[in-house]
């Protein structure tokens, strides 16, 4: 499912995955929801000694992961997170998958219930390039990182960084850390108000916990 956002050929060493991996304490228990081909799970398991489990919607992705020796189940974030008990993981990660879920809020709430922390990364629909495309062409934006046309995109729930911050407020979730990433996946290096990141961050990574 994470592949839904990225165009082909970017899965090998995605910078945003490194960013997410770096936020996970070594040796912890992690569930990666929408783990795709298992790139992040591998980074976590091999690089940080993490007990890493995955859930992936696409059967091809799951089979690839299990053949690599990763612990992954076929499942749907919208329906299958309900089967996990409270506090089962240290981290539940949703990497570039939020916008493809049917009920993003329910998914994030489950993540906060199942994990001590939730890490959510998503493409920021408030980026200036996207705003300009809508402003000048009047059409749904298609960019290098968001390469689908509106009628075929699996990304049905886009949001901006400001939207996500507002949702965190509504859910009463605590934002422990956040980073905006530029188009290459590198962090926007300076602390700025949300409105700035909302304009210049192409992606965002949030670490949340229950208050």
């Amino acid at each position, binding site marked *: 499912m994470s592949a839904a956002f990225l165009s082909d050929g970017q899965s090998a060493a995605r910078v945003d995955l490194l960013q997410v991996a770096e936020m996970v304490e070594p040796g912890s228990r992690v569930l990666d929801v929408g783990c795709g081909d298992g790139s992040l799970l591998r980074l976590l398991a091999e690089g940080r000694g993490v007990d890493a489990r995955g859930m992936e919607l696409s059967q091809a992705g799951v089979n690839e992961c299990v053949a690599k020796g990763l612990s*992954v189940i076929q499942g749907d974030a919208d329906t299958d997170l309900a089967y996990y008990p409270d506090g*089962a993981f240290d981290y539940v990660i949703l990497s570039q998958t939020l916008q493809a879920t049917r009920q993003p809020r329910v998914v994030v709430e489950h993540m906060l219930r199942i994990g001590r922390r939730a890490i959510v990364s998503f493409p920021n629909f408030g980026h200036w390039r996207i705003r300009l495309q809508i402003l000048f062409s009047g059409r749904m934006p298609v960019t290098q990182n968001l390469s689908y046309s509106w009628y075929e995109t699996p990304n049905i729930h886009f949001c901006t960084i400001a939207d996500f911050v507002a949702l965190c407020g509504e859910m009463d979730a605590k934002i422990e850390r956040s980073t905006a990433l530029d188009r290459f996946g590198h962090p926007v290096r300076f602390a700025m108000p949300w409105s700035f990141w909302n304009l210049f961050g192409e992606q965002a990574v949030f670490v949340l916990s229950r208050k």
Partner: protein
Amino acid sequence: MTRSHATSAPVRNEADEPSSEVLRFDATQGLELDCGVVLAPWRIAYQTYGTLNADRSNAILLCHALTGDQHVANVNPVTGRPGWWETMVGPGKPYDTDRFFVICANVLGSCLGTSGPASRDGEGGKARGLEFPVVTVRDMVRAQARLVDHLGIETLFCVAGGSMGGMQVLQWAASYPERVFSAMPIAAAAKHSAQNIAFHEVGRQAVMADPEWHAGRYLELGTRPEKGLAVARMAAHITYLSQPALHRKFGRNFQDRTAPTFSFDADFEVESYLRYQGRSFVERFDANSYLYLTRSMDYFDLAADYDGVLAKAFKGTKTRFCVVSFTSDWLFPTSDSRAIVHALNAAGGSVSFVEIETDKGHDAFLLDVPELLETTRGFIDAAARARGLAPVKKADRA
């Protein structure tokens, strides 16, 4: 569907004097069964492949299905055909016999050497017939545990099997969680569905309706309910396949003719195929064993022993699971596997779950399905790393 009684000899011999290793328990070493009976004396016939390492940490127990047997990867002494899981078991195969010590035992109630209705190991030396107690999947697993004890193995590296074998895998993981390092239930379920019980009942009724069944005493009388058992197998065989696979294989093709004969001959290829399946089955399997083993599957409902909550069967489990299902399997559909996965999730267990796309139906677990091989290889290799088992050096390959 007629044949001489001479060919029934192999099953009888294998039931009484199996060509496998046999572990015998005397009258003081009885096996406590779920029905309350203590079975004694009793015996269990088994095959092993590969070598047990010094730590006794590389043993894989394979559990066979309803009409399977312990001859996983050697020529079957009854049929003369290759072992039933040679795609999966052998040197360099996913269950690599260069690396692992593979054990498979004939299940309790079967007819290839372990105590069952066809074995003559009870009092008086005659076939036990219906005096043999009704056994459960848990009883089968208890019997296997006694064998594993005898082999000096505390923890099995893996317990794996398909269909009824998968039920045994689940029972192992629930009954002896600390003795199962990893588990692979394939095309299995934590309980037998009403539909599956119904199909089994059809099979049993077919056997019992055959006058040659003689209320289960046919072995004493020197006969066998071949027709009934063949019909049971024909009906069951359909459930192991899928509609698309049957169509692909046979369509509406005629058998050795170009037009219908306006008779009840096997006009269609599919009829001829089923008749052949029925015929060849009765040559290798005991009818009473078929009654007992189908019954054991019907009774299987793992959650029932845990207040109806399957997750409780796996509470605190440290076993690494890999659950596998097949898209076209309507006997043990993916939803059954998913229920196992959800229970393991709820129990905080380590579980992988793969649904493999194939039109081969329930029987897919026995067939050469590349994704099953890759999945098994990946899971077993990762589990072996976690268990600290060294990979096989190329030079050590036979």
